[in-house]
């Protein structure tokens, strides 16, 4: 089980801030493919990966990063702090 979190418009499109996902996905991209296949709201949220960022256990990562040992995955748009 992996905790999956969504922020900003990704959260709004998916419709919830976090959920537990039972997955055998090897990489972040595999997880994205699984989520996309679930329901249209996920397909909509993950339509364009270039508009998304991912963090694994609260560290920024790439979409081809492995999920082995990861407990928390977060998806969000490019950050707008400052």
């Amino acid at each position, binding site marked *: 089980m992996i905790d999956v979190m969504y922020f900003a418009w990704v959260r709004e499109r998916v419709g919830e801030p976090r959920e537990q996902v039972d997955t055998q996905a090897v990489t972040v991209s595999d997880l994205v493919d699984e989520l996309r296949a679930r329901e249209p709201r996920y397909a909509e949220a993950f339509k364009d990966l270039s508009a998304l960022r991912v963090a694994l256990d609260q*560290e920024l990562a790439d979409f081809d990063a492995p999920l082995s040992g990861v407990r928390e995955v*977060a998806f969000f748009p490019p950050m707008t*702090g400052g």
Partner: protein
Amino acid sequence: MPVRVQTEEFDPSEEIRGFGRGRTDVGAVVSFTGVVRDDDGTLDRMEIEHYPGMTQKAIEAMVDRATERWELADCLVIHRHGAMRPGDQIMMVATAAKHRVAAFEAAEFLMDYLKSRAPFWKKEFTCAGKTSWVDAKVNDEEALKRWEE
């Protein structure tokens, strides 16, 4: 090196009082305050969302990098989340170093990284009731490149 992520307002002049004092090796103190801007009088408020588990750690990592690279004597970062009105303070950065170039550069480095690498997302609410997420700017991403060693 204090890092504060908070909803409460803060007073930059209060924060800067005493900052870098008590040390005789500090020759320069720089501070920057970011304020909610409303260009055409249509903004009601801005709401900033963040990733609680990651924000503090991410900013502390940036502060560590800046402290090491510019040999800062002190460094302060405050960043708010939640609802803010035009004219409200969003965040501030202060740096204390031996020389002004180091203090200015470290503050700019922290600003550039806070903009594009700290997990905050701004949403604007207009007086007419429209909402929109603020898009990240290509320039902001470009700005990080000058700090790559």
